Each structure stands twice: as structure tokens, then as C-alpha cells.
């Protein structure tokens, strides 16, 4: 950045239904580096923003799933291309938010982008890995296919601002879900940047929605929302996760409490997948 010019700062906004609104509450909050230096003002999402995001995700889900698996892979791969072209910006924010050296931040961004590519390749494999043809004892063709749970809520990891976020949101998206993610409260800008990139990588509006803000305020709304089919509680401590899991049980949600070994794993891909089994008679 040139010394002799006042830089233009960006307000980091929410991502809902492909648009970037400020919070309906009009609030924002200050994000700082680990040392307390100002990074940006970020929209402070509200319960109503979560509600709007869920509506958008629900509306987008059928269309996202109706795309071919090949097409979903193309879209996700396009995100990797976008991220690569803006990797310095991502690395700068990972560095600021996570308090890392530029080199380490770059390495994390590399891993995160490679992770995006990994998920892009899964979209048209998962049915063959998780599906099956079932040899029932009768004149029926019987097959099982993995189908998405629907709308998945993600309470993203608080520390790993980009890598863990990529795992948490792209695993469900790759298998056909749409996502409402609550970004890391103190480190939200890398996630917000990734959200911006989806807008230029053919992601249909509503497939990925990101709410920044105070996790303690918005996560309970997401966990209790009846139109959310599953929730990933990776970003809250155990006691809070227990509360959210209890509340998620109200509508029999699928609950993922990921462990560190779950990153880039089949377990993550399986977490928000339902098995649908079809029987059809075989006869002349």
C-alpha cells in the first residue's frame, strides 16, 4: 500500500442469498489482530439475519442438488481458482487474524485452497463410495444413494479462520447441502473473503450463506431453527455445544461435533448425508 495515499477500507458484510447485506440490525463490530490492532469493522449479524440466511439456504437447496454432480464440482473448483488469484489477500487476513508470520499464513492458504480442490473432486465420487446396489432376496432392483440432509448450519471453528472453515462448509456443500455458517467471531475476515469469492465463482445464491457476529448470540438461533436439518458444532466449547445439541434435538437434527482428525475426511462428507433406498419391481 502506498504511503502517500489514504487507503480505502472495506466493510465486511454478511453473505445471504448471494448478496452482501449489512446486518438487518445495522450493527457492526470491530475485529482486531491478536495484538489488538484494528483490522476491520465487520457486520454483526442478528437472529433475524440467521433466519433470512436459512430461508435463502432452503430455497437454494433443491436447485443446488438438482445440478449435476459434475456441475457442482466445476463450481467448487472455480472457487479454488478465485481463491488462488486472491491468495495474497487471504493470506494477509489469515496473518492478521491468526497472528502468524507471512510465510505460515501463505502455507495455510495453500492448504485451504488445496482442500477446496479436494472437495471439488468429491462431488461426483461420493455416490459411488457411499451408495450401493443391494441384493435383496426377491424380484426387486434395490439401490441406495447418498442424498443431502438439506440445510446445514455450521458454527465454524474459532481459531482456524480459513482452513477449518473450508472443511466445515465445503464438505456439506460438496454432497449437495446448502449451508448457513457462523464465521469465527474474532477471526471472521478470511471466511468473509471466501464468501466474496463464491460470488464470482458461479455459486448459486443461497448455497453458502455466512453470518458474522457474536457466536453466543446467533448460534442458538441456528441450532434451534426447525428448518435446519443438521448442525456442525465445531466452533463452540463443550458446555455450549451440549446446550446447542440439546436444542438441535428439538427437530431431530443431525449433529456433528467434529474432532481434529475429521478435517478432509470421509466422516465429514458422511456427516450430513442421508441414505435413500429405492426398491423397484423387476418383471416382464
Amino acid at each position, binding site marked *: 500500500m502506498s504511503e502517500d495515499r489514504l487507503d480505502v477500507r472495506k466493510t465486511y458484510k454478511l453473505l445471504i442469498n448471494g448478496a452482501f447485506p449489512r446486518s438487518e440490525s445495522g450493527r457492526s463490530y470491530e475485529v482486531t489482530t491478536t495484538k489488538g490492532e484494528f483490522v476491520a469493522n465487520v457486520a454483526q449479524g442478528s437472529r433475524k439475519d440467521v433466519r433470512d440466511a436459512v430461508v435463502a439456504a432452503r430455497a437454494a437447496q433443491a436447485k443446488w442438488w438438482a445440478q449435476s454432480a459434475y456441475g457442482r464440482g466445476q463450481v467448487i473448483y472455480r472457487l479454488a481458482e478465485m481463491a488462488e488469484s486472491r491468495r495474497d489477500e487471504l493470506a494477509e487476513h489469515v496473518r492478521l487474524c491468526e497472528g502468524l508470520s507471512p510465510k505460515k499464513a501463505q502455507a495455510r492458504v495453500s492448504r485451504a485452497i488445496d482442500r477446496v480442490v479436494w472437495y471439488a473432486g468429491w462431488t461426483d465420487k461420493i455416490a459411488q463410495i457411499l451408495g450401493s446396489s*443391494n441384493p435383496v432376496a*426377491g424380484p426387486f432392483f434395490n439401490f441406495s444413494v447418498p442424498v443431502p440432509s438439506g440445510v446445514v448450519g455450521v458454527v465454524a471453528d474459532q481459531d482456524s479462520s480459513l482452513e477449518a472453515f473450508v472443511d466445515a462448509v465445503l464438505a456439506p456443500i460438496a454432497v449437495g447441502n446448502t449451508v448457513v455458517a457462523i464465521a469465527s467471531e474474532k477471526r471472521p475476515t478470511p471466511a468473509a473473503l471466501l464468501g466474496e469469492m463464491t460470488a464470482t465463482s458461479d455459486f448459486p445464491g443461497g448455497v453458502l450463506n455466512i453470518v458474522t457476529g457474536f457466536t453466543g448470540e446467533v448460534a442458538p438461533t441456528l441450532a434451534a431453527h426447525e428448518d435446519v*436439518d443438521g448442525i456442525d458444532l465445531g466452533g463452540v466449547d463443550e458446555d455450549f455445544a451440549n446446550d446447542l445439541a*440439546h436444542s438441535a434435538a428439538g*427437530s431431530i437434527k443431525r449433529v456433528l461435533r467434529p474432532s481434529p482428525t475429521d478435517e478432509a475426511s470421509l466422516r465429514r462428507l458422511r456427516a450430513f448425508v*442421508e*441414505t435413500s433406498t429405492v426398491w*423397484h419391481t423387476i418383471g416382464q
Partner: protein
Amino acid sequence: MSDELTNSRLGEMAYDPAPESAAIARLKPSYGLFIDGEFTDPSSHAAFVTLNPANEEPLASVAQASSADVDQAVAAARRAYDTVWSKTTGAERSKYLFRIARLIQERSRELAVVETLDNGKPIRESRDIDIPLAAAHFFYYAGWADKLDYAGYGPDPKPLGVAGQIIPWNFPLLMAAWKLAPALAAGNTCVLKPAETTPLSALVLAEILQQAELPPGVVNIVTGDGTTGAALVDHPGVDKIAFTGSTEVGRRIQQRVATSHKHLTLELGGKGANIVFEDAPIDEMIEGIIDGIFFNQGHVCCAGSRLLVQESVADDVLRRLIRRVDQLRVGDPLDKNTDVGAINSAAQLARIKELTAYGEEEGATRYTSTCALPDKGYWFAPTVFADVAQSHRIAREEIFGPVLSVLTFRTPEEAVAKANNTNYGLACGVWSEKGSRTLWVAERLRAGVIWANTYNRFDPTSPFGGVRESGFGREGGRHGLEAYLNV
């Protein structure tokens, strides 16, 4: 020609009673808990009586397990897990399961009669469906026990430990098989809690486990009411809870388990839509609707309790359906010609009556079979409601009885929208001779199981389970192992 103008009456040739003998059940006057390989008295010596719902006669006295008894059972399961079962090779576990499967086959007639006496289901169903499928389930998972490396969950997948399993009263032995077989194949030990009103076949299964010389404590069976189940759910020594039952109870279990690290699978209620297109194979479709809702008195979580019929054929389908409903033979469950047996309990009968009363109140048109019902026991005549609206309670709530709600649709899209307009998502049926449309519909139905041109078919190789408020996890097939592996 004059005689030709008389309508022909279906089922005019009456069938004399053809009852299976109740003595085949060889019931004992009382049964204890099955803990650590032995039948034991409960610590409190409390017991309850299980009735024959077809005549309200007592069948046997059964132990009521307290939380102390559950504690004993979990401790036995833990001991067996630590000292024996986790050290038993997959190949050996496999052979135990094969043994159990064979023993079920050998005692199938006895088990069928026990099941029919305790549950009220027709002997034709327990004989031809419940018991053979239970044996088949053990056969299927027997073969998995030494092949877990190939199940798609990575090399050497580990069991979870002690599984607490709570099963319903609608398919008592079959549900026990669905729970125990994959759990044991995966290397877990089990504490099984049968339903309060149908504990007997599980206790015969306990005898079979003894005959199979399954090591003590690998399977423990605790009979009792809801408090027994709650004690099992809350027990800190349990690593996994598998529950089949109502959504209401499932929700409470998920809430209780939320604050622990117990693994959980739930197989809950449903309000399955049976979708009939105008090009459906009509005779087989009518039979499919009948099977869909009157199989097992409609006490089936995946019952096709909502009939969605294309408007263009609705009148014809309804007329043929009513004709067929009136032909159903309702009565003595032990009679080999009975199609529809007894409602399992007074409580369930009251629930069915309550919801059907709402159906009338809300303005649906009620057709009830003219069949005669026995004087004693719990009975409900097969019933069809026509002119049902999406908003009616009988279109939204699970009745769990022989009651069908008929709605209509105009286009495939409307059919899918109506089918999916429910919090449940267990099973649906699609009837059409047009393959491409059937697959189009199947792809869009939010349900774990979709039957095309058939209904209520089950097989151990075929994953079964729901989405949304019908629960999560699958039973059956390779997928069914996941519920009992730490993967």
C-alpha cells in the same frame, strides 16, 4: 339372463377357522431378566403382566427392571466386552451369529406363535415375514463380522463398546434382530430393552442365545416400562443408544444424550405417502395400498398412511380400494386366514379412536369395513378417510393404526410437494408404469425408503431408516454397520 344381473359378492365362500395352536408357544408362567447369560429375578422382585391383545387374557408375568437392574446389565455387558467379546475374533463372532440365525429358523414356528400371542399380529405375517426376516438378519450380519475391513470405513474399524438398544412393540423379534445382529457383528456388547407390551419373543431369543452358547453378558435383556428405558439411556456406562419408537420419545432421548458423548441412532415415526399415478398397474397398486396401511394393523412406522392419488383416477381407485378393504378378514390373529389382527394395546386403541374422531370432526368422509369385531380384546376395523385435506390432523399425525387418509393431486410436482409436506421422512411409495417419472419422483421425495410399484418390503441387505423427524442412521445393509462402529 336374469341371474346375471345379480351382483357378485366377493369372499362369499366363508373359511372355517384355521387356527394355529397357542400351545406351540410353550410359554412359561413368568420370565426374569436376562443378565450375564442367566435369567435372574429383578432386585425389587417387581413384575408386570403381558396380555394377549386379542382377548385381554394374561400370557405371562415379566420382570420389571429397575435402574439397579439396568446397572447390573450394563456392568455385565461392559465386563463381557472387556474380557471376552473384544478379544473374540471376527470369524468367531460370525459363527455365533450364524448359530443364532439357525436356532431362530429351528424354533420359527414357536416364535411365530409367541409373537402373534403377545403382539396381536396375524400368524400369517409373523410366520411368513417377522420370523424369517429376523433369521435372515442374523445370517446377513453374521457374514460381516469378519469382513469389517471391507465395509468402507477404513482398515480395522473399532466397535463402540456397550450398546443400549430400545425397541418397539410392532415387530418385537424383528426389531431385536435389527438391533442385535449388526451390533454383535461389529463387536459391541448389548443391553436390549424390549417394549413393555411385547417382551416375550425377546425372552425366547434369550433362550436361543443360551443354546447358542453366546458368552454371558454379550447380550443382556431387561424388560420393563419407560423408566427402564430411561435408566438405560441415562446410564453413563453405555457408549451407544439405538432407539426405535415414536418421534416424541426419540426427541427426548436425543435431548438427554446431547450432553454426553454417547453415539445415537434413531428410527422414529412416519407419515408415508403412497403416490398413485393414473397409469399405475391398478390391481397390484390396490394390493400395495392395502399392504401399505393394513399390514400389521398399520402399526408400522413406514406405513403408507397417506394415499395421494391422481385426480383423474381417484374415484375408480377409491371404489376399488373400499371394495378391497371390506374384504379384509379381521379377527383371531392365530387363524391362518386372518388378514388384520388385534390392536396391540388399549392405549394404542384409544389413540387411534381419538385421531379418527378428529378425522370425522374435520370433515373427512369415513369408510369403515363392515367386518364383525370380536367382543373381547382391542380391535379397530380397517378404515379409509376420503376427502382429506393437507391440514387435517389425520393427514399430518401418525395414527399408527389401520387408518388410511386419501388425498388427491393433479401433477407429479404437486404429488411430490404434498408427499414432502410433513416433518417426517421415512418411506414413500410410487405407483406408475412409467419408469422415468417414477425415478423423477423418487429423486425428489424426502424419504429414506422409496418403494416403486411395491410397498412395505424389507430385506437385511437393504438400508432402512428415515430423514428429518423420522430419525437418523440406517439399519440393514453395509450402511447398518456404521451405527455400531467408531467411524
